[in-house]
């Protein structure tokens, strides 16, 4: 049985991904805070691609035949971690945005009470 030369694919992919993430941070398209989870996951994938001993140990422990499928499995696992991370962030943002919307409504009521009423205020 011949194994795919997974390192030849996985290592460049990880390196390119790290470069893309760093570039996004440099252009301020990605905030440092949110790049950390990406960098961590990509770095872990890189380590696994280079350190075949560790990958093989994991492969044996999960009963997989092929190191590249082990890498795929871990990749899916990492994707789930990132998705969960996003869900947590979305929940945080949702609470924050809702509080802000309420605050805007409360402030608008205060402002409009004091200000003269515009003539064509349909919905305030």
């Amino acid at each position, binding site marked *: 049985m011949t194994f795919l030369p997974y390192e030849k694919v996985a290592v460049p992919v990880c390196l390119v991904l790290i470069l893309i993430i760093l570039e996004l941070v440099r252009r301020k398209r990605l905030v440092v805070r949110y790049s950390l989870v990406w960098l961590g996951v990509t770095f872990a994938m890189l380590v696994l691609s280079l350190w075949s001993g560790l990958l093989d140990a994991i492969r044996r422990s999960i009963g997989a035949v092929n190191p590249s499928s082990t890498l795929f499995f871990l990749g899916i696992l990492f994707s789930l971690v990132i998705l969960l991370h996003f869900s947590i962030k979305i929940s945080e943002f949702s*609470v924050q945005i809702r509080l802000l919307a*309420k605050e805007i*409504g*409360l402030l608008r009521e205060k402002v409009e009470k004091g200000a003269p009423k515009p003539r064509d205020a349909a919905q305030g």
Partner: protein
Amino acid sequence: MPAFNEERNIRHSIETVRRDAPYADVVVVDDGSRDYTARLAREASATVISLPVNLGIFDAIHTAFIYARRMGYDAAVQVDADGQHQPSELPVILGPVLDGTADVVIGSRYLEQRGYKTPFSRRMGMILFANVTSALIGRRVTDTTCGFRAYSRDAIAAFASETGVDALDAVGLVILGRAGYRILEVPATVHTRLTGKSSINLVRSVVYPFVALLSLIPVLLNRRLVRPRPQP
């Protein structure tokens, strides 16, 4: 009074409250309505808090709690904007709050049979949730989702400080009940809607109890969420 696209009922609802409870300030939380709800409410000389986007009824009510706490009200009453409730019954639900014997008074549709018919799709979940709530707070509650309620100053502060709670009406009861707030139910008359459709559709009414049950998990597992009632 939370309101979402209630232009056909809002004026009537405000006027009924004004007539039956002239001592009360009427505050309408317009939950991002796309019709003339806010304008009509203002013309009926209610205080209108217009939310810039539709947040859903629980957040609309939460906004009202924040407002009530900031304005320092001694008591607040939640009334639906669709004219389903009888503001003439206001003294009944407000009484226990004002004389200091309860923190939350619920005008229950089910404590006495007064002709309110619950759609079958909602009944199962509601009974289930009412029983769970009753067990958790150690007090019989028959109507956890009723929109006709009175709150004391302490209850207003407690509800206002709860953020990020789904299904605030039912889950909030459990939070407050377990924190030592006194919850009381009195029978209330609830009419069917004047006009328009309820914001609760079939899917939501079936899913809702499960959302509420799930929302209970953090309440039960996380002690920090439940602050005890301040002792006088």
